């Protein structure tokens, strides 16, 4: 049977990809941020997962406003990265696992999650950058990937509670898959930031650290807040942190913290990295 061996979180902002591309990871601005990924890389190298479920939001590459699904899952054997309008060279395509994807989709619909199935997805920086930071940019990629997209852009956005529940259902879906596979779930995005309005540039270190602490073994803490309250605390784009709950919900109630890293600022954001061992 498939087994979820762990969960991770990572920032996914465009600047992370640029810094990797331009070889800036040891520059003063970036050094502490990227050095903090080394223990996560070591854990992955040691545990050798076969598949990573990447919980991310699309920022206007694959999904336009004509069709904004609350939750969407990739059901393909291959996912392409593509130019998001800034002329960046796409990274190598990713290998999926369509059978596992369809199994998850069927299980989620049975568990009353109204998922959107996607037999083709162009994955954007929200998906690509955490993989580059955690596995290193490579061609081919050393792990199979399944995109799980959460709408955090076009309100109404799902609640923290619904995201945690999706995670519970995702965990049941994965662990009912008959093939022996080691799976990790990666929650991307966040933490606090706001890109637009006179309030642009806010970062709330205290709230970010509360989120990091609570998500480890008390994730329901975040579900007490409405999205209004989360945005008031963490900024409009800081709502992305709800995606971490999808990851966390897929794990057991109590997990072992392997690694905890927080840095600020990265571009406009607080950046948090967690490695949670589910074994």
């Amino acid at each position, binding site marked *: 049977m498939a087994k979820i061996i762990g969960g991770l979180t990572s920032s996914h902002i465009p600047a992370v990809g640029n810094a990797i591309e331009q070889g800036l990871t040891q520059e003063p601005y970036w050094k*502490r941020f990227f*050095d*903090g990924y080394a*223990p996560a890389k070591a854990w992955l190298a040691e545990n050798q997962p076969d598949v990573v479920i990447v919980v991310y939001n699309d*920022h*206007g*590459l694959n999904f*336009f*406003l004509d069709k904004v699904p609350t939750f969407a899952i990739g059901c393909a054997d291959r996912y392409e990265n*593509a*130019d*998001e*309008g*800034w*002329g960046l060279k796409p990274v190598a395509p990713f290998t999926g696992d369509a059978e596992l994807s369809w199994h998850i989709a069927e299980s989620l619909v049975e568990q009353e999650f109204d998922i959107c199935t996607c037999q083709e997805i162009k994955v954007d920086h929200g998906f690509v950058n955490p993989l580059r930071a955690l596995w290193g940019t490579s061609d081919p990629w050393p792990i199979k990937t399944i995109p799980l997209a959460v709408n955090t*852009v*076009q*309100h*109404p956005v799902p609640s923290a509670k619904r995201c945690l529940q999706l995670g519970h259902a995702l965990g049941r879906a994965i662990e009912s898959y008959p093939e022996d596979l080691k799976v990790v779930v990666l929650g991307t995005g966040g933490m606090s930031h*706001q*890109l*637009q*309005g*006179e*309030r*642009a*540039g806010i*970062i709330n*270190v205290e709230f970010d*650290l509360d989120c990091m*602490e609570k998500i480890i073994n008390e994730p329901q803490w975040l579900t007490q807040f*409405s*999205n*209004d*309250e989360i*945005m*008031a605390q963490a900024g*409009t*784009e800081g709502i992305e942190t709800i995606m971490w709950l999808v990851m966390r919900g897929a794990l057991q109630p109590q997990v072992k*913290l392997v*690694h*905890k*890293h*927080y*840095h*600020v*600022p990265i*571009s*406009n954001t*607080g950046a948090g990295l967690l490695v949670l061992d589910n074994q």
Partner: protein
Amino acid sequence: MAWQQHPYNDIPGTYVFDGRRAHPSYAINKLLFSLNDAENRTAFETDAEAYCQRFGVEGVYREAVLSNDFLGMLRLGANIYYLAKMAVPRGVSVQDAGAAFQGISTEEFQRNLLQKGQGLESILEAKGGYWHG
């Protein structure tokens, strides 16, 4: 006709991208989304007026696009992620837009961000268990 009120409307300096904002700005966002495509970017550079017409971008929306008024576009409901597809290739970053919203320079905006990291290590030490290199 009744747009619903939300608690997030009371967060100062904040424009939540909901139906109320997205609905009137659909055409401009569709134009911006199309700029994912390099061929479309060329067509837009070549004849921005014709490009606006093709997407039904009219009136104040059209004026904001043709005059590179990114702040105006945001205020009119352009989504920040879609806007970046036009602004970034023209040398205007998301941080430039944030600074403009506050009426400060990008350097000052960036200095303010860097200040959020002041004292971070001691805060993390107090919390305990964080990586420090």
